[in-house]
């Protein structure tokens, strides 16, 4: 049953970074009703920026552990800058337009950013493996786990936990929930919905970039990163339910484990398995496993 | 003027969780009657119409239209059987012209299930619909997009669309709401004249008691989901309980 252990371990690790990415995406949809295809680009930008910064850091021979802080800084910078540009430069002009049209606009943004990334960083891969080996390893039974991966799992749980706590226990969070449930009413109650939108989008962008920055040391940071990720994040968010953070957790777990299972048992079935689950969920529970139907106003 | 029953409602009930929107309603409406439904807001008037026309499903009871059970049928089936309705907020096709709106309604009333592949703007149809527009006195707006016409015109369009089909039973939800007071009688005159020709049975919800007095020969007064009084207009409007709960204490 060593294979099972490998599958679970891999699955949980996949699920972790998927969760970080998906929480951002689902939050933005829940509050703003925007399915942001460019979220994948934020991930890629986070990864590339982190890789470059980490590369430069180690070249200068600075304290290795500081590179972790760099990852977070990269995520913050990319998230805030891109978030501001996207929200203030594009999304606020699409307020009120049909949801699908907005998705197309974010798709257009994604296309633009893909080329921008290539123009800045070129075609070759940007490896930044150094932080990955800094924390050592842990052995659990047949598994040799890299502590970086464990840290990633912890980070994901932190993001999910803090996110859920902030939404349900703080006043700011409750404001967000109000906007999610009924934007018009929230506005009528005096909530500055525009500001809520901006803050939400910034948080979402930072999380997307964080997903990229935190996984940069684990993967090959190269072309097409955004495309692969957006496809997965999309499946996670749909399965869990658009706008639901617990849903993102569930979706990430489902996709993470399926992907790990497929990779270990039936490699070519990876894409198929993910989309089979997504399609089945859409057929049986269109609002996702943990999502809820939006009340239609007549 | 009692004819054979067109609508028989028995023990109709609707619960939205704890809220009783319809309470054991028993009503029989005969052919060619003109019935007015009155009641305070939330009394269950629109719920009743929604139940009969299939917008919501009852929690219990039966609704028979010319002997056929309506409960469980989707609204489109009920419409095809001959039960049509207009809405409190006019439901029209906002980007299409007034004439086109009517042509769609007309086209869909043509043959039962096969609305299909016949041309929309055939000469016959255009003529028939232009005719209908002039009956309702809105032919001046025929080429304007429905979203851009005055509220009153949109209301009339909604009603005209509901009547495009040869309906046996017609429900009008607040036909004069949103129309200026001076015009209300004019509008109702037009509508009622058009419908009288059709020999349709008409049930209309109204808040304006003047309209009710003038056009409703029989009145159903709703209160808290149930029928408080049912009978000729004068009797019901004079009923003490109706005065208390619905119309308010007015002139004697």
């Amino acid at each position, binding site marked *: 049953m060593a294979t099972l252990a490998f599958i679970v371990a891999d699955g949980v690790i996949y699920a972790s970074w998927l969760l970080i990415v998906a929480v951002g995406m689902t939050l933005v949809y829940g509050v703003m009703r925007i399915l942001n295809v460019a979220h994948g680009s934020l991930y890629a930008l986070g990864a590339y920026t982190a890789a470059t910064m980490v590369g430069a850091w180690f070249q200068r021979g600075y304290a290795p552990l500081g590179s972790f802080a760099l990852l977070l800084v990269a995520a913050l910078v990319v998230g805030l800058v891109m978030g501001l540009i996207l929200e203030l430069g594009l999304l606020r002009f699409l307020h009120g337009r049909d949801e699908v049209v907005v998705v197309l*606009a974010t798709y257009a943004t994604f296309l633009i950013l893909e080329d921008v990334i290539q123009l800045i960083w070129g075609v070759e891969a940007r490896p930044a493996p150094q932080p990955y080996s800094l924390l050592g390893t842990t052995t659990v039974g047949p598994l040799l786990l890299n502590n970086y991966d464990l840290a990633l799992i912890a980070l994901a749980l932190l993001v999910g936990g803090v996110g859920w706590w902030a939404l349900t226990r703080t006043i700011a969070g409750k404001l967000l929930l109000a906007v999610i449930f009924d934007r018009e009413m929230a506005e009528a109650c005096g909530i500055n919905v525009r500001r809520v939108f901006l803050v939400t989008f910034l948080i979402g962008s930072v999380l997307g970039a964080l997903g990229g920055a935190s996984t940069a040391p684990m993967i090959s940071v190269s072309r097409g990163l955004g495309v692969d990720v957006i496809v997965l994040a999309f499946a996670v968010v749909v399965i869990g339910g658009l706008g639901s953070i617990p849903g993102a957790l569930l979706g990430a777990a489902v996709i993470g484990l399926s992907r790990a299972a497929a990779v270990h048992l039936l490699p070519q079935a990876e894409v198929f398995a993910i989309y089979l689950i997504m399609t089945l969920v859409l057929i049986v529970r269109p609002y996702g496993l943990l999502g809820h139907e939006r009340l239609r106003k007549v | 003027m009692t004819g054979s029953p067109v609508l028989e409602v028995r023990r109709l009930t609707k619960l939205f969780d704890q809220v009783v929107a319809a309470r054991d309603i028993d009503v029989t409406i005969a052919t060619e009657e003109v019935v007015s439904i009155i009641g305070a807001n939330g009394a269950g008037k629109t719920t009743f119409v929604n139940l009969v026309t299939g917008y919501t499903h009852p929690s219990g009871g039966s609704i028979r239209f010319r002997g056929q059970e309506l409960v469980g049928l989707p609204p489109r089936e009920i419409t095809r059987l001959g039960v049509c309705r207009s809405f409190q907020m006019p439901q029209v096709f906002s980007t299409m012209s007034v004439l086109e709106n009517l042509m769609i309604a007309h086209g869909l009333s043509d043959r039962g299930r096969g609305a299909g592949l016949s041309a929309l*703007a055939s000469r016959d149809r255009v003529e028939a619909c232009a005719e209908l527009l002039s009956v309702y006195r809105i032919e001046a707006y025929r080429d304007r997009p429905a979203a851009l016409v005055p509220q009153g015109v949109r209301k009339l369009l909604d009603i005209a669309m509901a009547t495009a089909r040869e309906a046996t039973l017609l429900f009008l939800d607040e036909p004069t709401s949103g129309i200026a007071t001076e015009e209300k009688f004019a509008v109702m005159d037009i509508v009622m004249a058009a419908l009288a020709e059709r020999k349709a049975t008409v049930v209309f919800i109204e808040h304006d008691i003047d309209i009710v007095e003038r056009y409703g020969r029989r009145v159903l007064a709703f209160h808290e989901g149930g029928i408080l009084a049912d009978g000729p207009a004068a009797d019901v409007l004079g009923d003490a309980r109706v005065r208390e709960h619905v119309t308010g204490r007015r002139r004697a």
Partner: protein
Amino acid sequence: MPARDRTGAALAGAFVVFVAAGFFLPSWAVSLVILSLARGIVALGLVVQFRSGLVSFGQALFFAIGGYAVGLAGLKLRLTDMIVLTVIGVAAATLLGAGLGFLMRRYREIFFAMLSLGFSMLFYGLLVKTETLGSTDGFNVPAPTIFGARLSALATRTLLYDLTVAAAAGAALAVHWYLGTILGRLDTALRDNEVRVEYLGYAPGRVIHVQYVLGAALAGGAGALTAMAVGHIDPSMAYWTTSGELVFVTILSGTGSVLAPFLGSLVFGLLQTYALQYAPSVWQMILGVALLAIILHLPGGLWSALERNRARA
């Protein structure tokens, strides 16, 4: 109505012009036109759906079905007649569309888009893991014949070109007629007020189902033509980026006329050819900027710009 006559006349004129041009255009242009017109046929189906406010993010499914039907028919059944193959492509896609339509008709807006994406990616995943179909590499399609005769490469190409032009004109004409019928006009009505359609006695779901099958049939035929023109099929025909391109062409074209998607597709094709040749590293950026420009400034697509100019003239 004068507008209808104009469309018919325009189509007839375009048909003649294109067929004649087929004898004079250089080979690369002929290929470009075939592929653009085929793409336009798919976009035509999307335009009809878009009028109801629905966007399919997975039209590539039927496009790929058409292509793979051609490939398999050629490989297993030794069928190579170009007309027969096109019909097979249409039939296969129509069948699947009719079946899936029962499910799709219950969805709207973003859920319709997502489910359509799901099905197309499912098919992609299936294709990728099927060794006998060549996995990610796909396989080659045998050269098409016509009425049993195998002609020279040039003649075959020209005939395929003519077939495509005819198919495009025929599809446009058929859809134009359809849009003038009650069912056809219900698509806009549906977008405006679904409740009212239901209350006038018609099932909104049925309108969507019919549109869906129509879109499938068109995409299947286009996929068949494309497969024969390119001579090769692979799973990328079903990938979401293919669907994305198709949606892009639809938005670019606008929904104002059955001629619009063909215009948009030709513009797209030209743009793509020149961009890939002279500025390949910014091709996606150009696409993205163009799409944004249309969404923000010209929501009615290129066709609406044309109409505006004509109105001013």
